[in-house]
């Protein structure tokens, strides 16, 4: 075979890999959306008895909804990004197969109603061996895609390795006879924190791609600091007992001190580089601005963390929203065109990103205002004490924002699935 035809063939497999990772990522979102519908139904008397595993279905569906729309979506998008430039599409396709089997296993366990639901932080799980096998397969599959030359994501790959190491060390150090809720919480606490470095690295890379930004000294420094921050987790593991309070708080401190600076540095660098060059009216410019706006609000709300009111969910929702807007923009503006499957209508993607970003912005803003007025987090109904018009209006904005964001999310999944599946 000539060098040229080998190159063509490798490129063919690379495009196939990218398309399949995207398909898995968007399919995970679609399933998460379907489960969210099930969540609503599970609260409806009469219907709940027909659902798999009856009324207990609510918590089980909630677990898999979170895992698919958060961990699986973000990690498979990371793998898709890695696939765009990496060598060895073979190992990427192998990883993709593993991840797909893992996703299918977790969905099967959910629908069969196996295992107890545990809503521990970061990675909630169904406490069933097959669910853990599914998680492990997704983790290994993403590693296979990420840990190869040419991805341009070395720092993120390092953070991901540290996260997996933290999970492994936790499995080894936490005795099996601990109370299951406590054990699962501690099992996913350390690595779950480090995964936030991975997610931050992912959004940083997405910003660069949206802006057509080339690496500079400052951007390298930003990714270096990110990798350094994640590495500090290894020190926490050496110094503290994973059953203690100091260990748990050390991870909170780790995010507080080490996570904010890298994305800010990178955003400054991207902005400085793209200021004149980038067409801010283009879809990519629009997605970049929307992502930064939502992200900035989330960062601001981050200063109120620990107050125990709804400014905490405001922070989380805005952060995830800001990441997702950038990823959606990257799929629509960069990845689909690269697959020669661009979205034809130019209006729809703009609306889609506007609805999703605007909805997330309203959602987070409502939570923020409600929190300032003193609404406690993770409460519902009469417990919330919505005793003033201001609190009522702000919680109304939360609901409205969620509805608008969900509409934007459905539009995204529909558009992208249609482009990925259609044969042309």
């Amino acid at each position, binding site marked *: 075979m000539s060098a040229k035809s080998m190159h063509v063939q490798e490129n063919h497999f690379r495009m196939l890999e990218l398309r399949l990772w995207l398909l898995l990522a968007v399919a995970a979102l679609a399933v998460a959306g379907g489960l969210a519908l099930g969540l609503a139904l599970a609260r409806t008397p009469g219907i709940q008895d027909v659902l798999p595993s009856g009324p207990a279905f609510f918590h089980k569906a909630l677990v898999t909804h979170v895992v698919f729309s958060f961990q699986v979506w973000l990690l498979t998008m990371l793998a898709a990004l890695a696939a765009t430039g990496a060598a060895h599409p073979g190992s990427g396709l192998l990883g993709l197969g593993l991840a797909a089997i893992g996703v299918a296993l977790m969905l099967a366990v959910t629908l069969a109603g196996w295992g107890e639901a*545990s809503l521990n932080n970061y990675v909630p799980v169904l406490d069933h061996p097959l669910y853990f096998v599914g998680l492990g397969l997704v983790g290994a599959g993403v590693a296979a895609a990420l840990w190869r030359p040419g991805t341009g994501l070395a720092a993120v790959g390092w953070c991901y390795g540290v996260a997996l190491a933290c999970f492994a060390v936790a499995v080894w150090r936490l005795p099996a006879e601990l*109370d299951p809720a406590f054990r699962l919480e501690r099992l996913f606490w350390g690595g779950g924190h480090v995964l936030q470095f991975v997610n931050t690295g992912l959004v940083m890379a997405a910003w660069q791609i949206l802006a057509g930004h080339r690496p500079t000294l400052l951007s390298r420094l930003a990714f270096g600091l990110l990798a*350094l921050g994640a590495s500090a987790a290894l020190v926490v593991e050496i110094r503290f007992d994973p059953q*203690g309070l*100091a260990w748990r708080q050390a991870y909170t401190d780790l995010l507080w001190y080490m996570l904010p600076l890298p994305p800010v540095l990178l955003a400054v660098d991207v902005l400085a580089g793209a200021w004149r060059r980038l067409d801010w009216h283009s879809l990519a410019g629009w997605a970049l601005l929307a992502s930064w706006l939502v992200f900035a609000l989330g960062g601001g709300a981050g200063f109120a963390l620990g107050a125990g009111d709804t400014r905490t969910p405001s922070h989380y929702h805005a952060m995830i929203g800001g990441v997702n807007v950038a990823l959606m923009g990257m799929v629509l503006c960069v990845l689909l065109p690269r697959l020669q499957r661009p979205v034809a209508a130019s209006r729809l993607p703009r609306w889609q990103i506007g609805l999703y970003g605007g909805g997330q912005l309203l959602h987070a803003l409502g939570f923020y205002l409600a929190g300032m007025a003193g609404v406690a987090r993770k409460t519902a109904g009469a417990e919330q004490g919505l005793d003033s018009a201001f609190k009522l209006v702000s919680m109304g904005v939360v609901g409205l924002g969620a509805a608008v964001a969900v509409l934007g999310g459905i539009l995204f999944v529909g558009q992208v699935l249609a482009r990925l599946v259609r044969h042309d």
Partner: protein
Amino acid sequence: MAGLAFLALAAWWPGWRGGEQPLGQAVDPAAFVAETEAFATRHQAGQTVRPPPGAVPLLARRFEFWPPLALDPGESYRLRLMAQDSVHSVAVNGREMLLVPGHVQDIDVAPGDQLELRCNEYCGLGHNRMRLKLY
């Protein structure tokens, strides 16, 4: 490069093992549970317990702090908390203590405090409900 970064971090944070917060006074768990139950019966007042100023034994368990209390805002108390079933925690005034079966942690309540006990260690599906207003 990564190895160097790791070494730098280990050196920057002096000391090999980190300090752990104390778990509190060691007690016989069964005796403490019996003591709390007797105390609650003695000071029962309707739906809640109205203890006299001073030491008040309390249990943290899925998914409540027990017994429910109605303290006098003008008095001083020493809440003595032990976890009954598995690990919980309690956060008061920005300070958090881990609650472990067999160990008792003290919280001093001064006149004028407006405290609410809240579990801060995930302990199961009812974890978010695990709160107690003291007044």
